[in-house]
């Protein structure tokens, strides 16, 4: 492997590590905030209902203990609010780039079975977006690997990329078993997976990257014959205000 190729692989690996760490931290923060909110509200309710009762005034420690619950829950919430910086893992380098190059790069480095078992058909047009190319490459790679897993490594993945009005859209379609209507809202939920042995973070990482650059990931209209199409949409930089 050449020095340049090795540098690219190392860079993508650090982006992937940062993305997984960010996703896990984000899920933990969200879930802990929910728990703390319930604790704070419950303590608030108890104090409010009991503060003027005989039992409350007879034991000053009830008031103190109530304060401890509130204070510690507040302090824990503050800890969660402190931004977790991942600069030691990955520093973003946002630039105006041709998104088509990220699509090509993502296909090249995706960890999927190769021909003849699995084939990737590409139809990509040029389009400018403002992103860190390593992150966009990772996001598209996640969509491709997700499609390959859905088809259990056999078949054809269709990747189309084009500008459409004010957006650049990358569409990854597979011919796997499809997604039930009731599952559509869940596929972007962290750690949600129907595949044994998988963490269920790929689509979520792609969605987080898209959101960072004012885009989105969603289940989209399927091309003829495909069972699922995931769309990654980003603002087209040439249409930016």
């Amino acid at each position: 492997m050449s020095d340049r190729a090795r540098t690219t692989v190392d860079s993508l690996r650090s982006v992937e590590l940062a993305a997984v760490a960010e996703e896990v931290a984000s899920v933990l923060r969200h879930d802990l905030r929910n728990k703390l909110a319930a604790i704070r509200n419950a303590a608030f309710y108890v104090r409010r209902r009991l503060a003027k009762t005989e039992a409350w005034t007879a034991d000053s420690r009830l008031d103190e203990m109530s304060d401890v619950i509130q204070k510690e829950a507040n302090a824990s919430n503050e800890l969660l609010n402190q931004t977790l910086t991942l600069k030691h893992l990955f520093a973003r380098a946002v630039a105006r780039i041709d998104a088509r190059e990220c699509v090509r790069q993502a296909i090249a480095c995706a960890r999927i079975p190769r021909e003849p078992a699995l084939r990737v058909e590409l139809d990509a047009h040029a389009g400018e977006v403002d992103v860190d190319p390593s992150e966009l490459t990772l996001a598209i790679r996640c969509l491709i690997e997700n499609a390959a897993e859905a088809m259990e490594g056999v078949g054809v993945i269709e990747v189309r990329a084009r500008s459409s009005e004010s957006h650049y859209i990358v569409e990854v379609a597979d011919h796997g078993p499809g997604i039930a209507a009731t599952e559509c809202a869940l596929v972007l939920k962290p750690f949600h997976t129907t595949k044994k042995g998988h963490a269920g973070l790929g689509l979520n990482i792609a969605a987080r990257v898209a959101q960072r650059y004012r885009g989105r990931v969603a289940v989209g209209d399927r091309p003829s014959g495909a069972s699922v199409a995931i769309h990654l949409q980003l603002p087209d930089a040439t249409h930016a205000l």
Partner: protein
Amino acid sequence: MTSVLLVDDDESNRLTMSALLEVEGFDVREATTFAEACTLLSATPSFTIVLTDQHLGDGLGSDLAPMIRARLPGAKIVLMSGSASAMTVTETWDGSFAKGEDFAELLRLIHSLLIS
């Protein structure tokens, strides 16, 4: 009595939030899922305020907005979330509340929305 629809899939949050709102004099109906919220909105179109968690097990709270706007044009929508990044107020809803903040803050928000 001001009627509130509280949508949250977290049982503890729903229980405590509902109790606090009732003490404040609100008439609270609860929905535990996106689907249940849709059912209640279809059957009982009389809510003044809808408080919804963003990340419900079977959908996003913000995706309830079109149905609420269609059925209850005067209702106020408050989006709640444990994710600070999701708390940007848009035209889709009227206010947002970060879970973990003081309940008093939520009350202030609700009263300001009722006046507006």
